[in-house]
């Protein structure tokens, strides 16, 4: 019984995670400039990563694999904003001012 419930919860999380990744991908394609694209991609980075990894953790149950997955999630949640910030800061240094290009045809 609890196995079935865990399975259902796990698949629900995995499906929602897949949806978050898909929406992040669609957003990265639809958005007009680099900064707005990064916003869309961060749905994949944050929400997608959390949902997919927690979903897989439920599949793994109480084991070393779950602890490893938890640590992977922690590292992802620390490193992906750092990478996004590095990308945005590099764009700013390169002269791509946020807001100015947002309405133009192609900023990023």
């Amino acid at each position, binding site marked *: 019984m609890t196995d079935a419930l865990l399975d259902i919860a796990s698949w629900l999380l995995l499906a929602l995670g897949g949806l978050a990744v898909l929406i992040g991908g669609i957003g990265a394609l639809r958005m007009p400039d680099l900064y707005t694209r990064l916003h869309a991609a961060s749905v994949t980075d944050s929400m997608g990563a959390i949902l997919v990894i927690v979903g897989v953790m439920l599949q793994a149950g109480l084991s070393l694999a779950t602890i490893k997955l938890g640590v992977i999630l922690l590292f992802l949640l*620390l490193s992906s904003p750092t990478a996004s910030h590095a990308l945005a800061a590099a764009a700013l240094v390169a002269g791509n001012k946020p807001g100015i290009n947002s309405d133009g045809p192609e900023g990023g």
Partner: protein
Amino acid sequence: MRSERRRVAEPEASQPKAGDRWLRAQLVLALLLIAFWLLWSGQFVPLLLVLGALSSLLVVYIVKRMGYFDTRIHALRYNFRLIGFWLWLLREIVRSSIEVARVVLSMPLRLSTEVVEVPVGDLDAVDQALLGNSITLTPGTLTVDTREDRLVVHALTAAGAQSLRDGEMKRRVIALRRAKAA
């Protein structure tokens, strides 16, 4: 025996030798990394043990070059209130993910980007990094630039910009620091 040791230790404590402390910190870090390597790999083949030891030492060398041991930054000195902060952050991530998803799927694209400056002159370096990273982690807000006294944040929606101006995240980061000092 014990009192003798204390007598010897006291002049050192009044004049802390920075070199010793850094060396100990490096040793602790190296041992911690090796322990993590063993835990993750679970294999005790000589080749992997040597590779683990070498990569741990390489990491210690790299972070030493980055000046990690020169500044007294110990990001791990947060206490259990960090878990409460994470739970709040998780709720924010869910809320703003839905908001950004709505913008992404809006048909024509409804954009109202804004640039907000968050004053952080009253935070120390670790707290600034925590706040900046938390802002970026939350979809719809992105820390673009860090100046000495403020973070320049790009917001996808007016609602996201408004919640930055309200500054609840910053208040929670400051509350963490208070807890840390106590």
